[in-house]
């Protein structure tokens, strides 16, 4: 019985040692991946910063104003002025085009009161 326990614990130690060995390498692999991910996050951050800066630069008011002036014929954009505000009643809604009446039906009320 006792020798069986000895053998069992020895086997357990061998098993644990093998497990620890594998875990060690798995951890090192994970750490490498984490480092790689951190690098990629950093690079993505840097790229994002550049894109944000570029977005802000391309949308700077001076440039937008120049573009609006260059493309006035196509876009007809004007600065926002008080005239742009109106009341709802002042909006002229387009009237739906009903078209000419072509197929007329002639009706007669002759004899209505004499059934």
């Amino acid at each position, binding site marked *: 019985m006792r020798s069986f326990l000895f053998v069992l614990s020895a086997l357990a130690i061998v098993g644990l040692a093998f497990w620890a060995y594998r875990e060690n390498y798995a*951890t090192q692999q994970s*750490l490498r991946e*984490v*480092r790689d991910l*951190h690098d990629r*996050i*950093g690079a993505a*951050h*840097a790229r994002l*910063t*550049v894109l*944000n*800066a570029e*977005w*802000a*630069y391309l*949308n*700077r*008011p*001076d440039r937008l*104003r120049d573009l609006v002036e260059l493309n006035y014929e196509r876009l007809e954009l004007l*600065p*926002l*002025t*008080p005239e*742009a*505000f*109106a*009341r709802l009643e002042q909006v002229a809604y387009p009237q739906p085009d009903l078209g000419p009446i072509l197929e007329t039906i002639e009706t007669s009320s002759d004899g209505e009161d004499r059934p």
Partner: protein
Amino acid sequence: MIRTPLRPLARILRARETGENPDVIERENKRLRHEAMRDRERMRAEGRLLVLGSMFVGAFFVVGMRMGALAATDPSEPRATAAGSAIMAQRADIVDRNGRVLATNLETHSLYAQPPQMVDPVAAAKGLAAIFDDLEEEELVEDFTGKRKFLWIKRKISPEQMQAVHEIGDPGLLFGPREMRLYPNGPIAAHVLGGASFGREGVASAEVIGVAGVEKHFDADLRDPARDDAPLQLSLDLTVQATVERVLHGGMTIMNAKGAAAVLMDASTGEIIALASLPDFDPNSRPRVLTEGDASDSPLFNRAVQGVYELGSVFKIFTAAQTMELGLGHAETLIDTKGPLTWGRHRIREFRNKNYGPFLSVTDVIVNSSNIGTARMAMEIGAARQQVFLKSLGFFEATPLEMVEAASGRPLLPRNWSEISTMTVSYGHGISTSPVHLAAGYASLLNGGTRVRPTLIKRDAPQVGERVVRPEVSAAARDMLRAVVQEGTASFGDVEGYRVGGKTGTADKPRPRGGGYYDDKVIATFASVFPADNPKYVLVVTLDEPVETSDDEPRRTAGWTAVPVAAEIIRRTAPLMGLRPEIEPATLEGVTLTSN
């Protein structure tokens, strides 16, 4: 275990035969047994002590080794603990009230040279001179072939320039990463932002430090890694700021002014929505500070914050408001305006020696901008009460704006506040303040009568400052300002739908080294509030030396110069700030009243 009997039969029998006491034998054996037990116990205890001691020694040894190891190794980031965000080492962004970027960072490179490693210094110098226009080939050759082991060539280079330097292919030309501050909007809000430059520089990195404006005021805060990349949000509105600068620049050109400043402020929160000072500069390449001459000639000079001027008649409303606040009169009280008013050797006259008759109501004193009427009201108030009132509006100290230049915009007050000072200060002479002071004063007076302090940081709630005047006085002052626009000196300021109220001020510029005032140089100011019945915004426009030349005779008064510019600013910016014009009901045309 084999125990030794205490009374061994053989010895007992022998003892009995010899007549000895057998108990002695038992005692002897008991003693021997106890001694053996004691020795065993001692051995065991000593063993335990030894184990315990060795454990302690081992533990101390491990701790000591670990301490030594920690002290001797380089620190490294704990990679295994999965932190969500890496520490941002870069300077935080600055954004406007809607989150649009005003200042951000960009990765670039710096270029440096190590001449000992160079293969062909002369060719390298030639190549560099071809890429960078401002580098001299001869100087570079001299540097590269001399004794120098290291030299900086360029602080910041663009990716294209970097590629071109790569193509020279000299191993002695090296690049270091650089983080530079970028202001994507160019000169817009330049004076507020200030600028940044490099502090301590190394090959691998350089410190970015703020040199002026908000950048310097919040320098430590912006560099704090604990901000975790949260941007600094200002109260400015980029669109409104750009519009104000554009309109102001146009106005400055038309009015032939030397400089101009505008402050647009939220009347209840004290937030500065736009702050412009012209001429301006590009913070990406900040010009050098003037070392000689007048600092105010430099584009770096912020006229709205640093420039203190005698702003003239715009101050009259404070005198009128205080008269009403103290109960010395109301809007319709008649004031003696017979001129000229003499005090000692000083004579107070109206503008162009006009005569407004013997009496004017307080409202008409403001509408006609009567110096004599205002001076008489100030005499009633007295110097002490006038000082307390102006102090409560913030005219005695520098503005608390969050930029380093704010502290230098300290108002100039009369050294000896005599009665004549009281009279001149009442119509804005003898006291020099910045346009931001004036905007804050107008906002405090007109928003219902509570003090607001100007700020550049976005706020969510109105400021609840100490009370300056009663709400009725504030409303009466607004009515007077509205009357100035409707029937007084600021008739060009009436923007349809926005019920603008305001006061003009035209002050002669003082000569630089004493000796009176210029005849043909003025500071024209228009301080306005809109809408006058429910004040939301305060706008102050100041033009430096404007001349309006559409007529034969040049016109310099604020009503002809500053007011039209301010009106155009209001017309353009009020819709941008979501202020809807109150459209007067249209009059019906072609309807005639008839009766039958």
